[in-house]
Structures are given as structure tokens and as C-alpha cells.
């Protein structure tokens, strides 16, 4: 089944931004499972004085749209505060990629969830309140 990806998706898939890990990351989050064919892992470096995300890296196992969603989502939260980053929705990620095929929308959800997990990891370490993560279908 041939999938028609937007040029943005292909760009972020061929040349993904922010790939890698951060040693001694301030927050690490993971979402997905190998059975479904997608796992996303997000690493955050946060300035404790300003709560600004100074660096973010990802590692993803999954299809092209999962890699592109991770790449785009990391771009969108870099330089933001942890509060601002929390408000990044999966539909905003998909929109920034000029859309994803309907069957691939879950890839953007995975990006949102992995970021939420990483932010909660940071919040827990810094005595901030843990926010319940909404798991949604799309």
C-alpha cells in the first residue's frame, strides 16, 4: 500500500532533527510498544531556573511518520518552557507536518505522549506536580 506523505514529512524523515540521546537528561519519556511497531523515546535538558527546554533529543523505532513526528515535535518544544511544551498537541504536530495519512495519526499521538512522559519525569524530579496523561486514540 503506497502512502502519500507530504514533502514536510519526507523532509523530516530523510533528515530528522534532534536525533540522539542526552547524557544525564533532566527528563526521559517513552511511549508506544514494539508489538504495534512504534516506540519513541524523548530526552530533555531543562534549565532549572527558567524551566526552559534548552535541548531535546529523540530515538524512534517506527515508520516514516513516527520518525517525522518525533523530529517535528522536538523542534516545536525546543526553547519553550515545560508548561508551554505540555500544551503541544498531536494535531499541532500533524498540522506542522502538513498533515499525516489518517491511519498514521497515531504516530503524532505517540510524540505527544512521549513528550508528556518526559515532562512528568522532569516535574517529578523537581518537586512539581505530576499531570495525568490523557491517552487518546488519535
Amino acid at each position, binding site marked *: *500500500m*503506497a*502512502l502519500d506523505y507530504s514533502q514536510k514529512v*519526507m523532509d523530516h*524523515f*530523510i533528515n*530528522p532533527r534532534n*536525533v*540522539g540521546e542526552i547524557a544525564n537528561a533532566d527528563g526521559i519519556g*517513552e511511549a508506544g510498544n*514494539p*508489538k*504495534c*511497531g*512504534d*516506540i*519513541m*523515546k524523548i530526552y530533555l535538558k531543562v534549565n532549572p531556573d527558567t524551566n526552559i527546554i534548552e535541548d531535546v533529543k*529523540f*530515538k*524512534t*523505532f*517506527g*515508520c*516514516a511518520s*513516527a*520518525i517525522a513526528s518525533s523530529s517535528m515535535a522536538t523542534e516545536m518544544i525546543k526553547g519553550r518552557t515545560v508548561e508551554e511544551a505540555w500544551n503541544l498537541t498531536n494535531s499541532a504536530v500533524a498540522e506542522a507536518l502538513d498533515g499525516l495519512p489518517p*491511519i498514521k495519526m497515531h504516530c503524532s499521538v505517540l510524540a505527544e505522549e512521549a513528550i508528556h512522559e518526559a515532562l512528568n519525569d522532569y516535574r517529578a524530579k523537581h518537586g512539581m506536580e505530576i499531570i495525568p496523561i490523557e491517552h487518546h486514540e488519535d
Partner: protein
Amino acid sequence: MFVYMDHTATTPTSPEVLKAMMPYFGENFGNPSSVYSFSRKSRSAVEKARTQVAQALNADSSEIFFTSSGTEADNWALKGTLDKARLTGKNHLITTQIEHHAILHTAEYLHKFEGVDVTYLPVDSEGFVNPDDVKAAITDKTALVSIMFANNEVGTIQPIKEIGAICRERKIPFHTDAVQGAAHLDIDVKAMNIDMLSMSAHKMYGPKGVGALFLRKGMRPENFMHGGAQEHKHRASTENIAGIVGFGEAMEILKTRLNEDKAINSARRDKLIAGILDKIPDAKLNGAVCGDKRLPNNINFSFIGVEGETLLLDLDARGISASTGSACSSESLDPSHVLLALGLKHEMAHGSLRFTIGRLTTDEQIDYVLEVLPEIVARRRAMSPLWEDYLKSKGEN
């Protein structure tokens, strides 16, 4: 470089075949069923093709029935046989877990709408059906055994002759989907105890949209297409003359070069397999290990840590067309039922990659794939958390 390595999906119609077809679009457009002499050319063209196909299988030309596709031949064999058998109280179908959807979805239909009991035989880790399992599954209600000749994803060739002998002894009709098998292997329907066999022209350098069902004398599944009296009253609808002519021509050409093609393809296949095993760590070959029991053109691997669709797109960017059993390239989210039936874990099934070589393949292309693929796999693995976990667990053991 344009490297087409998806010959199992389809093949280009060869120039000789196309040339033989052309007159039947234009000057010889007559309907074979018409009485006047002009239509005789169309009629004899169909009969010539029937003989060409029959000879390739060691069948009689009266045993070949043209259809619109391999899918239609499969539907006809299963539905037509079960429809008739159910009148005598037989409602059991035996098939396998690794069939093409043309068989699997037909079996599901028969179960859902006609109450047919279906046994889906398992396969071993290389994709082989055990003939003893066929024997054990047969009951006095069994109406048909349908087992594919060779698998389209992993290339495993089944012990057809042995299974055919079991069915013959128990007097149960035996059908085989040889859409892939007939495109690469010598098939003798008599020696192999085959009662019904499906084929498709576009897998063997013929046109798309034409296939055939071989029905051994005495095999009369209920018609699938009802209507006119074409194909000796067994398959209605005005014949696709040009397509049928192309199929006959393609089959005859295939037969004349079969052994040569087999030798060239297997040598290239083995070189590609050996090269991948050599250059890519933790690459797992899927399907039959022994070359004689694997389609000469099939190469199927799983690369732990990488997902198949990403490999396809990376290869496509380098001009290489391949295929995957990953869910990400399908409409469902489940990976290939064939790879799961072979016992692959989901993540390995998601990471599968299939190259199917053929007449468009050259030695240079094999070298090119071996140059490009290791880089691609390494780069995608480097960004995969699953690969990282895998390396850690390997280190611990």
C-alpha cells in the same frame, strides 16, 4: 540507477508478448462466439493460448479455463467446489495460515456466509506445511484441500507432490495457488497429483488482468461467473482475447527459458543473501534456508531494530523498489500474517524487507543494493531505541 526488485508484485509485459497481443486490439477484434468467418481468428487465437498454457503444465488443453486473474481462479476453485460439496453434506476446507489473501479472504467468506468449517494448517519456522498435518486434518466432511505452491512473501516451496498424493489417496480434490510457483518452477500437474491450479499472467511477463484455472478432467466446481457459454460453458463473459493471447505467449517463452532463468536468478539470490548476512549484523533470513526449496528470485530479511517502511522509503530515495511485510505499509496495523505464522515476533515482522529479482535484474544491481543497504540499516538502527535495547540485552547474555 533504477533498480526494480519487486518482480513478485508484478512484472513488465515483455515486448514479444505485447507484439503478439497487438493485433487482437485492432484488426482481429471479432468476438470468438460469433458465427461468421471473421471471428474465427479470435477463436483460434484463444485455442492456441490454451494449448500453450496446457503444454507448460503437462495438462490437456481442455483442462485450462481462462479467468480475469489469479484471484478469480482462487475464488472459483474454493467457492465453486464448496458450493457443490455442501449439497452432499461436505463442508470442510483445509488450507494454510500463509496463503495469499485471495485464498484466505475467500475462506473467511465461506465460513462467514456459508458456514464452511475451515482448518488453517500451521507452518514451521521456514514456512513449510507438514504433509502429516494435512493427513491428520482430513475428515469425512472434507471437500477440498488448498495449499499454495510457493509463498509470495518468503518464497517457501511446499511439498506439493506429497500433499497431492495424500489427497488423491483419500479422494479429496487438491487445489494449489501457483500464481508464484508457475512463474518460476517446472510444474507437471500429472506427476504432482494436482487437481486444480491457479495462475496469473502478470507474474510471468504477461499482461495484468488475465489468469487461468486448471481443472483436471472430472473436476467441475460450480461456475463462478454465470452468464454466456464461453470457456465451454464454465466461465461466462466475452474473452479477453489480447490478454489470453499474451498469457499463452508469456507462458511459452517462460517455459523455454525456465532452467536458464532459474540458474541465473538463484545465483544472484544467493549472492544477495550471502552479502546481506556478511555485511549487516543481526540480519535474519526469513523463509526456506535451502535454495532448492525457495523461489529462485526471493530474498526476505528482518532487521531487528528497524521498521520495514522506513527501509523501503530510504531505498526508494536511492532508486531501489522493494517490498515489506510491515504493517506500516498496509492498511491495517498488523504486520504480515505470513511472517507471524513463521513465528516471528511482531517487531521482527515489522522489520521485514523483501527483494524479488527477475529479468530486469543485473549483477551490478545486486552489488549496488549490497553497497547501499548496510548504510541505510545502520543509520536507521542508530536512531532506534529498540536496537539500543537489543544491543544491551545481547551484551548481558
